[in-house]
């Protein structure tokens, strides 16, 4: 059963009086509680698609329904945990104060309290226990990203829109966070839309990987990852895992050749 239904979506931008087709004829069905990764060359419209699903931008053509509702309706109900590509931290707020923004804003809508996380323990979990009261300028790029991720977890929002959340992290930290994300997802069955450039990440985490191609941005393939759930690291490197890696790599390469 499809939860997020994306139908015939087109998105164009004007640049110097010329239309560029950022997204062309996107069709996609995403099930409730599933983990979907988006992968594709830079500029193929991954962030744009995430914005449209999150109600931050409107498509010129096509329809998006999430459980029968429009993205704007869900946005108004604070149903999205948005992790932007550039970590949106307010420089005058400490890390902890930044974690509190979603709770301070638009207060009449409250998050599902059962799934909310305690900000401080979440910060500890992403390795920032000593930086709770630090200002963003005192953090590295990867540390800022981790705050953004912890903040999305803290809200308990049922739909997570994560735009390359691990791009600035070192391998080890990335692994740790990947497992945390997987755990939170397994625990609460959130619907996750996850943009990445990393094939391994995509296969390991996802139920479905959406391969996109550029100019115009379109969905070139959708690969279902039928690895067992719950998964752990043992799956990495197994023949079936490697087959998915190869398949993904090839469908990405096709689009270049």
């Amino acid at each position, binding site marked *: 059963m499809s939860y997020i239904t994306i139908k015939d979506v087109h998105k164009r931008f004007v640049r110097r009086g010329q239309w560029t087709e950022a997204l062309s004829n996107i069709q996609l069905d995403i099930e409730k509680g599933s983990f979907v990764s988006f992968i594709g060359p830079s500029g193929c419209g991954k962030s744009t698609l995430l914005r449209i699903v*999150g109600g931050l931008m409107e498509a010129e053509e096509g329809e998006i329904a999430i459980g029968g509702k429009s993205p704007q309706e869900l946005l108004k109900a604070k149903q999205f945990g948005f992790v932007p590509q550039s970590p949106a931290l307010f420089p005058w707020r400490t890390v902890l104060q930044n974690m509190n923004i979603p709770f301070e804003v638009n207060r009449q809508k409250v998050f599902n309290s059962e799934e909310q996380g305690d900000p401080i323990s979440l910060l500890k979990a992403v390795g920032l226990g000593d930086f709770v009261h630090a200002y963003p300028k005192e953090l590295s790029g990867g540390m800022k990203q981790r705050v953004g991720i912890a903040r999305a977890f803290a809200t308990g929002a049922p739909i997570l829109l994560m735009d390359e959340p691990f791009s600035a992290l070192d391998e080890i930290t990335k692994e740790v966070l990947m497992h945390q994300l997987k755990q939170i997802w397994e625990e609460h069955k959130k619907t996750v839309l996850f943009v990445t450039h990393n094939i391994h990440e995509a296969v390991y985490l996802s139920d479905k990987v959406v391969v996109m191609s550029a100019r115009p941005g379109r969905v070139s393939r959708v690969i279902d990852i039928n690895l067992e759930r719950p998964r752990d690291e043992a799956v990495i490197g197994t023949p079936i895992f490697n087959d998915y890696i190869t398949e993904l790599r090839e469908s990405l390469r096709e689009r270049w050749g």
Partner: protein
Amino acid sequence: MEKSTETVTWGVRVRNATGSVMLPLMTFVILFAAWELIVRFMDVQAVILPAPSVIFAELFTSFSFYLPHIGVTFYEAMVGFVIGTVLALIGGVVMSQSRLLERMLLPVAVLAHVTPIVVIAPLFMIWFGFGTFPKILVAAIISFFPMLINSTTGFRSVDESNLEYMRSLHASRWEIFFKLSLPGSLPFLFSAARTCISMSVIGAVVGEMSGASKGLGNVVMVSANYLQMDRMFAAIFLLALMGILLTNAVRVVEKRFLAWHSSGH
């Protein structure tokens, strides 16, 4: 470990204090000494240029004479500063929210800004008399423009991804303004406030010079007419001091508020 870091910060603090207070002070001491020497050895007449020693002697012996004048000028400048900057902030909010309103309002503000305030001040005196009100008005007008321009720019210069994040939470226009635009533009507002506060002293003095019975501007005018150069220089010195102290007062507040901002350090 603990101790050594403390010594380091203490050392840095001492060096900072030396840099920001002692060095300029030394320059002034040298300047005043040179001035003193020139006046003494070249026999400059006191009606042309009094020696610093004479000026300071005048200042200390008749300080009670200056005190009410200081109070009046300070009052006019401060009230003018507050009125001017508050109105400018309101204007900045309005103009940052709407390009249309900006296009309508900005030309008026520019016109008021480019018209020399010195020629408007006598007009205010004719309209509003010799009291403090016309001086406050001049001080307000003169401190309006820098704050208007900086606040409009500041409120507009919101970080795009922060703005998008706020929108993803369906934050209201006012939440976005008070939680994002306003704190984010504090560096702009403080830098304007530093300019405005010394401008407002100039405004008060300009107002006083076009007709007043009180205030340091008036003291300068009157003593110039009577060639009381020591008094005139004492008043000028007090005005300069007032400007420096007020600008630094803003700096102190700025440092408290902008610990997160690099220029606030």
